[in-house]
Protein backbone atom coordinates (compact mmCIF):
# COMPACT_ATOMS: atom_id res chain seq x y z
CA UNK A 1 0.00 0.00 0.00
CA UNK A 2 0.91 3.63 -0.47
CA UNK A 3 1.28 5.88 2.54
CA UNK A 4 1.55 9.64 2.94
CA UNK A 5 3.18 11.69 5.68
CA UNK A 6 2.16 15.32 6.16
CA UNK A 7 5.06 17.48 7.32
CA UNK A 8 5.51 21.12 8.22
CA UNK A 9 8.65 23.22 8.15
CA UNK A 10 8.64 25.14 11.45
CA UNK A 11 11.04 27.32 13.45
CA UNK A 12 13.19 25.27 15.83
CA UNK A 13 11.18 25.30 19.08
CA UNK A 14 14.35 25.97 21.11
CA UNK A 15 14.82 29.32 19.34
CA UNK A 16 14.69 32.63 21.14
CA UNK A 17 11.62 34.19 19.51
CA UNK A 18 11.01 37.88 18.86
CA UNK A 19 7.83 39.40 17.50
CA UNK A 20 7.64 40.87 14.01
CA UNK A 21 7.11 44.61 13.54
CA UNK A 22 3.32 44.31 13.20
CA UNK A 23 3.00 42.07 16.29
CA UNK A 24 1.15 39.40 14.33
CA UNK A 25 3.72 36.59 14.33
CA UNK A 26 7.30 35.88 15.28
CA UNK A 27 10.06 37.50 13.26
CA UNK A 28 11.23 34.54 11.18
CA UNK A 29 14.21 36.19 9.48
CA UNK A 30 17.00 34.81 11.64
CA UNK A 31 15.36 31.62 12.85
CA UNK A 32 16.56 28.17 11.89
CA UNK A 33 13.78 25.94 10.60
CA UNK A 34 13.35 22.20 10.93
CA UNK A 35 10.84 19.40 10.33
CA UNK A 36 8.07 19.75 12.93
CA UNK A 37 8.98 17.41 15.78
CA UNK A 38 5.67 15.51 15.81
CA UNK A 39 5.96 14.86 12.06
CA UNK A 40 9.36 13.17 12.46
CA UNK A 41 7.64 10.48 14.55
CA UNK A 42 4.94 10.08 11.89
CA UNK A 43 7.58 9.58 9.16
CA UNK A 44 9.47 7.07 11.32
CA UNK A 45 6.28 5.07 11.86
CA UNK A 46 5.79 4.78 8.08
CA UNK A 47 9.45 3.89 7.49
CA UNK A 48 9.08 1.11 10.08
CA UNK A 49 6.03 -0.21 8.19
CA UNK A 50 8.04 -0.05 4.98
CA UNK A 51 10.98 -1.90 6.57
CA UNK A 52 8.48 -4.59 7.63
CA UNK A 53 7.18 -4.92 4.06
CA UNK A 54 3.71 -3.59 4.96
CA UNK A 55 4.01 -0.35 2.97
CA UNK A 56 5.46 -0.13 -0.55
CA UNK A 57 5.80 3.60 -0.99
CA UNK A 58 6.18 6.47 1.48
CA UNK A 59 5.38 9.94 0.14
CA UNK A 60 6.09 13.17 2.06
CA UNK A 61 3.94 16.25 1.49
CA UNK A 62 4.24 19.81 2.71
CA UNK A 63 2.38 23.06 2.14
CA UNK A 64 4.64 26.08 2.40
CA UNK A 65 6.96 28.57 0.74
CA UNK A 66 10.09 27.66 -1.22
CA UNK A 67 12.22 27.24 1.92
CA UNK A 68 9.82 24.51 3.16
CA UNK A 69 11.35 22.31 0.47
CA UNK A 70 14.14 21.70 2.98
CA UNK A 71 11.70 19.70 5.13
CA UNK A 72 10.90 17.47 2.15
CA UNK A 73 14.59 16.95 1.39
CA UNK A 74 15.09 15.85 5.00
CA UNK A 75 12.23 13.34 4.65
CA UNK A 76 13.67 12.01 1.37
CA UNK A 77 17.13 11.69 2.87
CA UNK A 78 15.65 9.85 5.85
CA UNK A 79 13.85 7.31 3.66
CA UNK A 80 10.72 8.71 1.99
CA UNK A 81 10.47 7.67 -1.68
CA UNK A 82 9.12 10.87 -3.22
CA UNK A 83 7.72 14.22 -2.19
CA UNK A 84 4.96 16.68 -3.02
CA UNK A 85 5.40 20.40 -2.37
CA UNK A 86 2.28 22.56 -2.53
CA UNK A 87 3.55 26.08 -3.02
CA UNK A 88 1.59 29.15 -4.04
CA UNK A 89 1.81 32.79 -3.05
CA UNK A 90 -1.95 32.80 -2.51
CA UNK A 91 -1.35 30.38 0.40
CA UNK A 92 0.66 32.91 2.44
CA UNK A 93 -1.23 33.66 5.65
CA UNK A 94 -3.39 30.57 5.23
CA UNK A 95 -5.12 28.75 8.06
CA UNK A 96 -5.59 25.03 8.85
CA UNK A 97 -8.71 24.72 6.71
CA UNK A 98 -7.01 26.19 3.65
CA UNK A 99 -3.99 23.92 4.12
CA UNK A 100 -6.24 20.88 4.48
CA UNK A 101 -8.23 21.85 1.42
CA UNK A 102 -5.08 22.11 -0.67
CA UNK A 103 -3.82 18.76 0.64
CA UNK A 104 -7.17 17.15 -0.07
CA UNK A 105 -7.16 18.45 -3.64
CA UNK A 106 -3.61 17.20 -4.19
CA UNK A 107 -4.08 13.67 -2.92
CA UNK A 108 -7.74 12.76 -3.41
CA UNK A 109 -6.93 10.71 -6.51
CA UNK A 110 -3.55 9.32 -5.35
CA UNK A 111 -4.93 6.13 -3.81
CA UNK A 112 -3.22 6.35 -0.43
CA UNK A 113 -4.26 3.78 2.17
CA UNK A 114 -2.80 5.56 5.17
CA UNK A 115 -2.06 9.20 5.91
CA UNK A 116 -0.02 10.07 8.99
CA UNK A 117 0.85 13.47 10.39
CA UNK A 118 1.93 15.03 13.65
CA UNK A 119 -0.73 15.82 16.27
CA UNK A 120 0.13 19.51 16.05
CA UNK A 121 2.67 21.97 14.71
CA UNK A 122 5.19 23.42 17.13
CA UNK A 123 4.59 26.97 15.87
CA UNK A 124 0.82 27.61 15.60
CA UNK A 125 -0.30 24.61 17.74
CA UNK A 126 -3.61 24.49 15.86
CA UNK A 127 -3.96 20.67 16.07
CA UNK A 128 -6.33 20.58 13.12
CA UNK A 129 -4.87 19.69 9.73
CA UNK A 130 -4.91 15.88 10.10
CA UNK A 131 -8.52 15.83 11.28
CA UNK A 132 -9.60 18.31 8.60
CA UNK A 133 -8.04 16.17 5.86
CA UNK A 134 -9.81 13.10 7.29
CA UNK A 135 -13.08 15.02 7.42
CA UNK A 136 -12.76 16.27 3.84
CA UNK A 137 -11.96 12.74 2.63
CA UNK A 138 -14.64 11.23 4.90
CA UNK A 139 -12.07 8.71 6.16
CA UNK A 140 -11.82 7.35 9.71
CA UNK A 141 -9.51 9.39 11.94
CA UNK A 142 -7.65 8.91 15.20
CA UNK A 143 -5.50 11.54 16.87
CA UNK A 144 -2.55 11.49 19.28
CA UNK A 145 -1.45 7.92 18.51
CA UNK A 146 1.23 6.50 20.79
CA UNK A 147 1.22 3.06 19.14
CA UNK A 148 0.19 1.76 15.70
CA UNK A 149 -0.02 -1.80 14.39
CA UNK A 150 -1.58 -3.40 11.34
CA UNK A 151 -3.99 -6.09 12.55
CA UNK A 152 -4.64 -7.19 8.97
CA UNK A 153 -4.06 -5.49 5.60
CA UNK A 154 -7.14 -3.30 6.02
CA UNK A 155 -7.26 -2.73 9.79
CA UNK A 156 -5.02 -0.46 11.82
CA UNK A 157 -4.98 -0.71 15.61
CA UNK A 158 -4.29 2.66 17.21
CA UNK A 159 -3.53 3.43 20.86
CA UNK A 160 -4.77 7.00 21.33
CA UNK A 161 -3.27 8.96 24.19
CA UNK A 162 -5.89 10.21 26.66
CA UNK A 163 -5.31 12.02 29.94
CA UNK A 164 -4.08 10.70 33.29
CA UNK A 165 -1.90 8.00 31.81
CA UNK A 166 -4.73 6.30 29.92
CA UNK A 167 -4.98 5.21 26.28
CA UNK A 168 -7.98 4.31 24.15
CA UNK A 169 -7.39 1.40 21.79
CA UNK A 170 -9.38 1.60 18.53
CA UNK A 171 -9.41 -0.48 15.35
CA UNK A 172 -9.91 1.60 12.23
CA UNK A 173 -10.55 0.42 8.70
CA UNK A 174 -8.17 1.72 6.04
CA UNK A 175 -7.96 4.08 4.27
CA UNK A 176 -7.59 6.32 7.31
CA UNK A 177 -5.82 9.36 8.71
CA UNK A 178 -3.92 9.21 12.01
CA UNK A 179 -1.99 11.92 13.86
CA UNK A 180 0.81 10.89 16.20
CA UNK A 181 2.22 12.01 19.52
CA UNK A 182 5.92 12.56 20.15
CA UNK A 183 7.85 9.81 21.87
CA UNK A 184 6.14 6.85 20.15
CA UNK A 185 9.36 5.69 18.45
CA UNK A 186 12.94 6.80 17.93
CA UNK A 187 13.09 8.76 14.66
CA UNK A 188 16.08 7.79 12.54
CA UNK A 189 18.47 10.35 11.11
CA UNK A 190 19.45 10.69 7.48
CA UNK A 191 22.60 8.77 6.57
CA UNK A 192 25.19 10.17 4.16
CA UNK A 193 24.03 7.54 1.68
CA UNK A 194 20.45 8.68 2.22
CA UNK A 195 21.37 12.30 1.63
CA UNK A 196 23.06 11.36 -1.67
CA UNK A 197 20.15 9.15 -2.74
CA UNK A 198 17.64 11.91 -1.94
CA UNK A 199 19.07 14.06 -4.71
CA UNK A 200 17.69 11.64 -7.29
CA UNK A 201 14.23 11.27 -5.71
CA UNK A 202 11.33 13.10 -7.35
CA UNK A 203 9.73 16.20 -5.81
CA UNK A 204 6.51 17.34 -7.48
CA UNK A 205 5.75 21.04 -7.03
CA UNK A 206 2.07 21.97 -7.28
CA UNK A 207 0.49 25.41 -7.45
CA UNK A 208 -3.19 26.09 -6.75
CA UNK A 209 -3.90 26.05 -10.49
CA UNK A 210 -2.57 22.47 -10.64
CA UNK A 211 -5.03 21.54 -7.91
CA UNK A 212 -8.08 23.02 -9.60
CA UNK A 213 -8.32 25.66 -6.88
CA UNK A 214 -8.72 29.38 -7.40
CA UNK A 215 -7.33 32.01 -4.99
CA UNK A 216 -10.87 32.68 -3.74
CA UNK A 217 -11.15 29.01 -2.70
CA UNK A 218 -8.37 29.51 -0.21
CA UNK A 219 -9.53 32.57 1.70
CA UNK A 220 -8.50 32.03 5.33
CA UNK A 221 -11.30 31.68 7.87
CA UNK A 222 -9.07 32.68 10.76
CA UNK A 223 -7.40 36.09 10.85
CA UNK A 224 -4.59 36.72 13.31
CA UNK A 225 -5.22 39.90 15.29
CA UNK A 226 -2.09 39.75 17.40
CA UNK A 227 0.64 37.62 18.89
CA UNK A 228 1.97 38.80 22.23
CA UNK A 229 3.93 37.53 25.22
CA UNK A 230 1.71 36.10 27.98
CA UNK A 231 0.65 38.66 30.58
CA UNK A 232 2.78 38.61 33.70
CA UNK A 233 0.32 37.26 36.22
CA UNK A 234 1.71 35.94 39.43
CA UNK A 235 5.42 36.38 38.81
CA UNK A 236 8.10 34.48 40.61
CA UNK A 237 10.43 36.30 42.98
CA UNK A 238 13.73 36.11 41.09
CA UNK A 239 16.84 35.41 43.19
CA UNK A 240 20.22 36.74 42.11
CA UNK A 241 23.77 36.32 43.30
CA UNK A 242 26.45 33.65 43.12
CA UNK A 243 25.26 30.01 42.91
CA UNK A 244 26.18 29.60 46.59
CA UNK A 245 24.27 32.72 47.64
CA UNK A 246 21.25 31.64 45.60
CA UNK A 247 21.38 28.11 47.04
CA UNK A 248 21.46 29.49 50.57
CA UNK A 249 18.51 31.79 49.87
CA UNK A 250 16.54 28.93 48.28
CA UNK A 251 17.11 26.68 51.30
CA UNK A 252 15.81 29.53 53.48
CA UNK A 253 12.66 29.96 51.35
CA UNK A 254 12.01 26.22 51.19
CA UNK A 255 12.42 25.88 54.97
CA UNK A 256 10.16 28.85 55.67
CA UNK A 257 7.43 28.14 53.10
CA UNK A 258 7.18 24.34 52.95
CA UNK A 259 8.47 22.92 56.20
CA UNK A 260 10.05 20.02 54.35
CA UNK A 261 13.59 20.86 55.43
Amino acid at each position, binding site marked *: MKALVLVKHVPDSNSVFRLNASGTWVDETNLSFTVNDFDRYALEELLKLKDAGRVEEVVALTVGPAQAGAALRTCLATGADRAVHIKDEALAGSDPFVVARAIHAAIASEGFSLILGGLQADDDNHTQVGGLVAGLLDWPFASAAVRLSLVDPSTLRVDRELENNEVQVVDITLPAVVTVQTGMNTPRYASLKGIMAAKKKPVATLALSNLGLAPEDVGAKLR*TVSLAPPPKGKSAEILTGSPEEIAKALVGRIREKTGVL
Partner: protein
Amino acid sequence: MAKVLVLAEHDGKNLKEISFELLGMAHRVASGATVKALLLGEGVSELASKLSERGANEVIHVEGSALRHYTGEGYRRALVPLLEEELPDLVLLGHTPNGWDLAPLLAARFAAPAATGCSKIVLENGKGRFTRKAFNGKFIHEIEVGSARPMIATVEKGASSPVEGATTGTVRSVAAAVAESDLRTRHVEIKKAEAGGLDLSQATIIVSAGRGVGAPEKLEVVRALAEALGGQLGASRAVTDAGWLPHEHQIGSSGVSVSPKLYVACGISGAIQHVVGMKSSAYIVAINKDADAPIFGVADVGVVGDLFEIVPALTKAVKEAKP
Protein backbone atom coordinates in the same frame (compact mmCIF):
# COMPACT_ATOMS: atom_id res chain seq x y z
CA MET B 1 -27.47 37.16 21.56
CA ALA B 2 -25.74 34.12 20.23
CA LYS B 3 -26.75 30.53 20.07
CA VAL B 4 -24.12 28.41 21.79
CA LEU B 5 -23.98 24.62 22.00
CA VAL B 6 -21.72 22.71 24.36
CA LEU B 7 -20.54 19.13 23.94
CA ALA B 8 -20.51 17.36 27.31
CA GLU B 9 -17.68 14.95 28.09
CA HIS B 10 -18.16 11.91 30.28
CA ASP B 11 -16.84 8.41 30.87
CA GLY B 12 -20.25 6.70 30.79
CA LYS B 13 -20.72 7.12 34.55
CA ASN B 14 -19.66 10.64 35.42
CA LEU B 15 -19.52 13.96 33.62
CA LYS B 16 -16.07 15.48 33.34
CA GLU B 17 -15.50 18.86 34.98
CA ILE B 18 -14.77 20.45 31.60
CA SER B 19 -18.47 19.99 30.73
CA PHE B 20 -19.47 22.40 33.51
CA GLU B 21 -16.67 24.82 32.63
CA LEU B 22 -17.92 24.86 29.02
CA LEU B 23 -21.46 25.65 30.22
CA GLY B 24 -20.05 28.54 32.26
CA MET B 25 -18.19 29.92 29.27
CA ALA B 26 -21.20 29.38 26.99
CA HIS B 27 -23.39 31.57 29.21
CA ARG B 28 -20.80 34.34 29.21
CA VAL B 29 -20.57 34.24 25.40
CA ALA B 30 -24.32 33.81 24.78
CA SER B 31 -25.15 36.92 26.85
CA GLY B 32 -28.60 35.83 27.85
CA ALA B 33 -29.50 33.46 25.02
CA THR B 34 -30.37 29.81 25.56
CA VAL B 35 -27.41 27.49 26.12
CA LYS B 36 -27.83 23.89 25.04
CA ALA B 37 -25.72 20.91 26.01
CA LEU B 38 -25.18 17.94 23.72
CA LEU B 39 -24.85 14.64 25.55
CA LEU B 40 -23.96 11.58 23.48
CA GLY B 41 -23.82 8.08 24.90
CA GLU B 42 -25.64 4.92 25.85
CA GLY B 43 -27.60 4.71 29.11
CA VAL B 44 -26.59 8.22 30.22
CA SER B 45 -30.00 9.80 31.01
CA GLU B 46 -28.89 10.50 34.62
CA LEU B 47 -26.06 12.62 33.27
CA ALA B 48 -28.56 14.61 31.21
CA SER B 49 -30.37 15.80 34.31
CA LYS B 50 -27.06 16.75 35.95
CA LEU B 51 -26.27 19.01 33.00
CA SER B 52 -29.67 20.67 33.26
CA GLU B 53 -29.00 21.37 36.95
CA ARG B 54 -25.67 23.02 36.22
CA GLY B 55 -26.31 25.48 33.45
CA ALA B 56 -27.82 23.78 30.40
CA ASN B 57 -31.16 25.41 29.51
CA GLU B 58 -31.78 22.45 27.27
CA VAL B 59 -29.98 19.12 27.07
CA ILE B 60 -30.10 17.26 23.79
CA HIS B 61 -29.50 13.70 24.85
CA VAL B 62 -28.49 11.49 21.93
CA GLU B 63 -28.79 7.84 22.77
CA GLY B 64 -27.35 4.93 20.82
CA SER B 65 -25.09 1.89 21.07
CA ALA B 66 -22.77 3.41 18.46
CA LEU B 67 -22.05 6.11 21.07
CA ARG B 68 -21.27 3.78 24.00
CA HIS B 69 -17.64 4.90 23.74
CA TYR B 70 -16.23 7.98 22.10
CA THR B 71 -15.06 7.58 18.52
CA GLY B 72 -14.50 10.59 16.31
CA GLU B 73 -16.46 8.98 13.53
CA GLY B 74 -19.45 8.00 15.69
CA TYR B 75 -19.69 11.41 17.38
CA ARG B 76 -19.30 13.27 14.09
CA ARG B 77 -22.05 11.30 12.39
CA ALA B 78 -24.41 11.69 15.33
CA LEU B 79 -23.72 15.42 15.64
CA VAL B 80 -23.85 16.58 12.02
CA PRO B 81 -27.66 16.24 11.55
CA LEU B 82 -28.24 17.87 14.96
CA LEU B 83 -26.05 20.85 14.13
CA GLU B 84 -27.76 21.20 10.75
CA GLU B 85 -31.05 21.41 12.61
CA GLU B 86 -29.89 23.67 15.45
CA LEU B 87 -27.79 26.07 13.36
CA PRO B 88 -25.71 27.33 16.30
CA ASP B 89 -23.39 30.32 16.10
CA LEU B 90 -20.78 28.56 18.20
CA VAL B 91 -20.05 24.98 19.28
CA LEU B 92 -17.79 24.55 22.31
CA LEU B 93 -15.75 21.43 23.02
CA GLY B 94 -13.09 20.79 25.65
CA HIS B 95 -9.45 21.12 24.59
CA THR B 96 -9.06 17.48 25.57
CA PRO B 97 -7.95 14.41 23.60
CA ASN B 98 -11.52 13.82 22.41
CA GLY B 99 -12.22 17.51 21.82
CA TRP B 100 -9.19 18.07 19.60
CA ASP B 101 -9.99 14.81 17.82
CA LEU B 102 -13.57 15.82 17.00
CA ALA B 103 -13.30 19.59 16.38
CA PRO B 104 -11.56 19.36 12.97
CA LEU B 105 -13.90 16.56 11.83
CA LEU B 106 -16.88 18.84 12.45
CA ALA B 107 -15.07 21.85 10.99
CA ALA B 108 -14.39 19.96 7.76
CA ARG B 109 -18.02 18.91 7.45
CA PHE B 110 -19.32 22.49 7.78
CA ALA B 111 -16.33 24.27 6.21
CA ALA B 112 -16.37 26.05 9.56
CA PRO B 113 -13.65 28.13 11.22
CA ALA B 114 -12.19 26.38 14.26
CA ALA B 115 -10.11 27.85 17.09
CA THR B 116 -8.34 25.46 19.45
CA GLY B 117 -7.05 25.73 23.01
CA CYS B 118 -9.04 28.89 23.74
CA SER B 119 -8.88 30.65 27.11
CA LYS B 120 -11.26 33.48 26.17
CA ILE B 121 -14.00 33.94 23.58
CA VAL B 122 -15.83 37.16 22.76
CA LEU B 123 -18.63 37.57 20.23
CA GLU B 124 -19.17 41.14 19.13
CA ASN B 125 -20.80 42.71 16.07
CA GLY B 126 -21.13 39.30 14.47
CA LYS B 127 -17.43 38.56 14.81
CA GLY B 128 -15.83 35.99 17.05
CA ARG B 129 -12.56 36.77 18.79
CA PHE B 130 -10.62 33.87 20.28
CA THR B 131 -7.65 34.02 22.65
CA ARG B 132 -5.38 30.98 22.54
CA LYS B 133 -1.75 30.02 22.91
CA ALA B 134 0.85 29.47 20.21
CA PHE B 135 4.49 28.37 20.29
CA ASN B 136 3.72 26.01 23.18
CA GLY B 137 2.61 28.77 25.51
CA LYS B 138 5.38 31.24 24.73
CA PHE B 139 2.85 33.58 23.07
CA ILE B 140 -0.82 34.51 23.33
CA HIS B 141 -2.44 34.34 19.90
CA GLU B 142 -5.60 36.33 19.20
CA ILE B 143 -7.61 35.34 16.18
CA GLU B 144 -10.75 36.69 14.62
CA VAL B 145 -13.47 34.99 12.63
CA GLY B 146 -15.97 36.73 10.37
CA SER B 147 -19.49 35.72 9.45
CA ALA B 148 -19.01 31.99 8.80
CA ARG B 149 -21.24 29.78 10.97
CA PRO B 150 -21.05 27.64 12.95
CA MET B 151 -17.80 28.58 14.64
CA ILE B 152 -16.13 25.74 16.49
CA ALA B 153 -13.82 26.16 19.46
CA THR B 154 -12.02 23.93 21.92
CA VAL B 155 -11.59 25.47 25.36
CA GLU B 156 -8.68 24.99 27.72
CA LYS B 157 -9.34 23.31 31.04
CA GLY B 158 -9.68 25.79 33.86
CA ALA B 159 -10.30 28.72 31.50
CA SER B 160 -13.83 29.27 32.73
CA SER B 161 -15.66 28.70 35.99
CA PRO B 162 -18.89 26.66 36.08
CA VAL B 163 -22.30 28.29 36.53
CA GLU B 164 -22.93 29.02 40.22
CA GLY B 165 -26.03 27.65 41.92
CA ALA B 166 -28.58 25.13 40.72
CA THR B 167 -30.40 25.67 37.42
CA THR B 168 -33.38 24.01 35.82
CA GLY B 169 -33.48 23.02 32.19
CA THR B 170 -35.27 20.62 29.93
CA VAL B 171 -34.01 17.35 28.47
CA ARG B 172 -34.85 16.23 24.96
CA SER B 173 -33.88 12.66 24.09
CA VAL B 174 -33.28 11.60 20.51
CA ALA B 175 -32.05 8.38 18.96
CA ALA B 176 -28.60 8.53 17.38
CA ALA B 177 -28.66 8.86 13.60
CA VAL B 178 -25.81 6.36 13.38
CA ALA B 179 -25.58 2.62 13.96
CA GLU B 180 -22.53 0.66 15.12
CA SER B 181 -22.46 -1.20 11.83
CA ASP B 182 -22.06 2.12 9.94
CA LEU B 183 -18.74 2.85 11.61
CA ARG B 184 -15.28 2.08 10.36
CA THR B 185 -13.88 2.82 13.83
CA ARG B 186 -14.30 0.25 16.60
CA HIS B 187 -13.55 0.96 20.25
CA VAL B 188 -11.50 -1.91 21.73
CA GLU B 189 -10.69 -0.75 25.27
CA ILE B 190 -9.44 2.00 27.52
CA LYS B 191 -6.39 0.97 29.51
CA LYS B 192 -3.61 2.42 31.62
CA ALA B 193 -0.39 3.22 29.81
CA GLU B 194 2.39 0.81 30.73
CA ALA B 195 3.95 1.62 34.09
CA GLY B 196 6.54 0.24 36.48
CA GLY B 197 4.80 1.06 39.75
CA LEU B 198 5.98 4.63 40.40
CA ASP B 199 3.20 6.86 41.73
CA LEU B 200 4.19 10.53 41.77
CA SER B 201 0.63 11.69 42.48
CA GLN B 202 1.11 11.26 46.24
CA ALA B 203 4.71 12.56 46.47
CA THR B 204 5.46 15.34 48.98
CA ILE B 205 8.59 16.59 47.23
CA ILE B 206 9.24 16.42 43.49
CA VAL B 207 12.30 17.60 41.59
CA SER B 208 11.70 17.58 37.83
CA ALA B 209 14.00 17.69 34.86
CA GLY B 210 13.17 19.22 31.49
CA ARG B 211 14.68 19.63 28.05
CA GLY B 212 17.25 22.01 29.58
CA VAL B 213 19.22 19.11 31.09
CA GLY B 214 20.32 18.39 27.52
CA ALA B 215 21.52 14.78 27.81
CA PRO B 216 20.55 11.64 29.72
CA GLU B 217 23.79 11.41 31.74
CA LYS B 218 23.25 14.98 32.95
CA LEU B 219 20.01 13.92 34.64
CA GLU B 220 22.18 12.79 37.54
CA VAL B 221 22.59 16.41 38.65
CA VAL B 222 18.82 16.69 39.08
CA ARG B 223 18.49 13.22 40.60
CA ALA B 224 21.09 14.16 43.24
CA LEU B 225 18.96 17.13 44.33
CA ALA B 226 15.86 14.94 44.51
CA GLU B 227 17.75 12.48 46.71
CA ALA B 228 19.17 15.20 48.95
CA LEU B 229 15.67 16.57 49.51
CA GLY B 230 14.24 13.07 50.04
CA GLY B 231 11.94 13.59 47.04
CA GLN B 232 10.97 11.90 43.80
CA LEU B 233 12.32 12.55 40.33
CA GLY B 234 9.79 13.92 37.82
CA ALA B 235 10.15 15.00 34.20
CA SER B 236 8.59 17.01 31.42
CA ARG B 237 7.47 15.35 28.20
CA ALA B 238 10.72 16.18 26.39
CA VAL B 239 12.68 13.97 28.79
CA THR B 240 10.37 10.94 28.64
CA ASP B 241 9.90 11.24 24.86
CA ALA B 242 13.67 11.08 24.45
CA GLY B 243 13.69 7.91 26.54
CA TRP B 244 15.90 9.43 29.26
CA LEU B 245 13.31 8.42 31.86
CA PRO B 246 10.33 6.04 31.67
CA HIS B 247 6.89 7.51 30.86
CA GLU B 248 5.70 7.13 34.46
CA HIS B 249 7.97 10.04 35.48
CA GLN B 250 6.10 12.39 33.15
CA ILE B 251 4.14 15.18 34.82
CA GLY B 252 1.45 16.98 32.84
CA SER B 253 -1.80 16.56 30.97
CA SER B 254 -0.90 13.24 29.39
CA GLY B 255 1.14 12.01 32.36
CA VAL B 256 0.39 12.37 36.05
CA SER B 257 -0.97 15.40 37.89
CA VAL B 258 0.84 16.23 41.13
CA SER B 259 0.39 18.60 44.06
CA PRO B 260 3.42 18.19 46.34
CA LYS B 261 4.45 20.59 49.12
CA LEU B 262 7.56 21.42 47.11
CA TYR B 263 8.09 21.27 43.35
CA VAL B 264 11.47 22.13 41.85
CA ALA B 265 11.48 22.56 38.04
CA CYS B 266 14.97 22.30 36.55
CA GLY B 267 15.40 23.29 32.90
CA ILE B 268 11.64 23.16 32.27
CA SER B 269 10.25 25.98 30.12
CA GLY B 270 6.69 25.51 31.34
CA ALA B 271 4.63 24.47 28.32
CA ILE B 272 0.93 24.47 29.17
CA GLN B 273 0.80 20.65 28.96
CA HIS B 274 3.32 20.46 31.81
CA VAL B 275 1.97 23.34 33.88
CA VAL B 276 -1.56 21.88 34.15
CA GLY B 277 -0.02 18.86 35.88
CA MET B 278 1.98 20.74 38.54
CA LYS B 279 0.49 24.20 39.08
CA SER B 280 -1.41 23.10 42.19
CA SER B 281 1.89 22.34 43.98
CA ALA B 282 2.07 24.29 47.27
CA TYR B 283 5.49 25.87 46.59
CA ILE B 284 7.21 25.99 43.23
CA VAL B 285 10.89 26.69 42.55
CA ALA B 286 11.98 27.20 38.93
CA ILE B 287 15.51 27.18 37.58
CA ASN B 288 15.86 28.06 33.89
CA LYS B 289 18.31 29.94 31.71
CA ASP B 290 15.56 31.73 29.76
CA ALA B 291 14.16 34.67 31.75
CA ASP B 292 11.07 34.68 29.53
CA ALA B 293 10.23 31.00 30.16
CA PRO B 294 6.53 30.63 31.11
CA ILE B 295 7.49 28.52 34.13
CA PHE B 296 8.40 31.76 35.96
CA GLY B 297 4.74 32.75 35.65
CA VAL B 298 3.65 29.86 37.87
CA ALA B 299 6.68 29.60 40.17
CA ASP B 300 6.87 31.21 43.61
CA VAL B 301 10.60 31.68 43.42
CA GLY B 302 12.86 31.51 40.40
CA VAL B 303 16.49 31.55 39.37
CA VAL B 304 17.52 32.67 35.88
CA GLY B 305 20.73 30.79 35.29
CA ASP B 306 22.59 27.64 34.37
CA LEU B 307 21.03 24.70 36.15
CA PHE B 308 24.39 22.92 36.15
CA GLU B 309 25.74 25.68 38.43
CA ILE B 310 22.63 26.29 40.55
CA VAL B 311 21.39 22.73 41.14
CA PRO B 312 24.69 21.28 42.48
CA ALA B 313 25.06 24.30 44.78
CA LEU B 314 21.50 23.79 46.00
CA THR B 315 22.11 20.06 46.56
CA LYS B 316 25.13 20.90 48.69
CA ALA B 317 23.25 23.56 50.68
CA VAL B 318 20.32 21.16 51.27
CA LYS B 319 22.68 18.48 52.59
CA GLU B 320 24.30 21.00 54.93
CA ALA B 321 20.92 22.26 56.12
CA LYS B 322 19.62 18.83 57.03
CA PRO B 323 20.06 17.92 60.69
